């Protein structure tokens, strides 16, 4: 009995996250799907984006021909600065991160465990030159850590697991998970489903999830 549902696209996932960010929050977006969030914040809602390399008030990509070669974000993409933005150095930038001043960080992940552990920086330390960037600082430092990722891997293995198999980025850090199938809150009682896409039922969602889920 196959169900009728259409998993969200990556922009749709990012759109769900964007809808949930209130005006006035300071937010850092990781690379990948999280980067797409900035473009989908509803018009008129002021959200201030932070970039690890010393920027508050990061704006959208510049128009072609209007690139400032001195202004890049943590993903090394050319960006703009909004009116009211500011520059500071890396130690101050990570003091903001580590000191709990960001309301939210949105990261991609390979895996999230039922206790909120996140693995997003390496599949194995051995096989290639590893890179961690600011992920570990962001994961422990922001007031809230939301993960946005596909619910399963391309070959159908669950990403929401009892215990991460990949190297950890941070312990018990994730507070909410947005996937192409559902929105799930990490609570002291466990993973509580806050929403599912149309046509998907709880049993099918659980079927695609290693960790145990709690009905909303």
């Amino acid at each position, binding site marked *: 009995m196959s169900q009728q549902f259409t998993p969200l696209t990556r922009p749709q996932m990012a759109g769900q996250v964007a809808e949930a960010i209130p005006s006035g929050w300071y937010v850092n977006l990781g690379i990948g799907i999280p980067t797409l969030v900035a473009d989908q914040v509803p018009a008129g809602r*002021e959200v201030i984006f932070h970039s690890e390399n010393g920027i508050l008030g990061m704006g959208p990509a510049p128009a072609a021909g209007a690139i400032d070669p001195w202004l890049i974000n943590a993903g090394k993409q050319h960006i703009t*600065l909004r009116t009211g933005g500011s*520059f500071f150095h890396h130690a101050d930038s990570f003091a903001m991160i580590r000191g709990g001043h960001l309301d939210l960080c949105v990261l991609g992940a390979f895996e999230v465990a039922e206790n909120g552990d996140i693995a997003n920086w390496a599949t194995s330390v051995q096989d290639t030159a590893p890179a961690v960037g600011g992920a570990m600082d962001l994961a422990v430092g922001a007031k809230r850590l939301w993960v946005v990722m596909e619910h399963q891997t391309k070959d159908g293995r669950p990403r929401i697991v009892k215990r991460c198999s990949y190297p950890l980025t941070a312990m018990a850090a994730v507070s909410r998970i947005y996937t192409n199938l559902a929105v799930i809150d990490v609570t002291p009682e466990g993973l509580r489903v806050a929403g599912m896409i149309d046509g998907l039922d709880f049993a099918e969602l659980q079927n695609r999830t290693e960790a145990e889920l709690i009905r909303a």
Partner: protein
Amino acid sequence: MIDKRVRSVAEALSGIHDGATVLVGGFGAVGQANILIEGLIEHGARDLTVVANNAGYGRVGLARLLEVGRVRKLICSFPRIVGSTIFETLYKAGRIELELVPQGTLAERMRAASAGIPAFFTATGAGTQLAEGKETREIDGRTYVLEQALPGDVAIVEAWRADRWGNLTYRSSGRNFNPVMAAAGKLTVVQTQHMVELGEIDPETVVTPGIFVDRVLHVPYGDPTG
């Protein structure tokens, strides 16, 4: 729209609770948000712990707050300056507690709080009375003291310019502890000489980015005296 501007001292100080730790910027008479500090009297919070470099001077600002008995404890590097008679009187009478902290350690403990660092080692104070009872460690043949982060429930700072996002600049030696405390307060309240439009402060010259600021009150009082 983000708008951190408030219209009154009462609005600026609302929600500060009895027993709060209040970081008070300024050094000497320069860079002290006296209107907000004195506003705490009207506000009524009691049993405060105040962190400040000095203990106030004359009968204004912090000295006034001490005089009316709202401060249980002062965390301070240099309470004894010319004109700090109110503090000295209270201290001799045993009516105020003092935690004396070396000036650089005071600044760094607040900087640590703002940066998510719960504790750090410093050589300052090693082997002195001010390190008594504190954990020490030998590192590369030198003795260091472990110092703890010092966060504030509230920071009360003075700025020269501010905008509606809470971006701040300071003036001359009015900078002092203000940016450090702005970043270390859970609630940061600013008294600014000039309120400017968003974008008027060059992004390269913002000293305190608005992320550290919650409320801004325009108080164009002029020059410091004393």
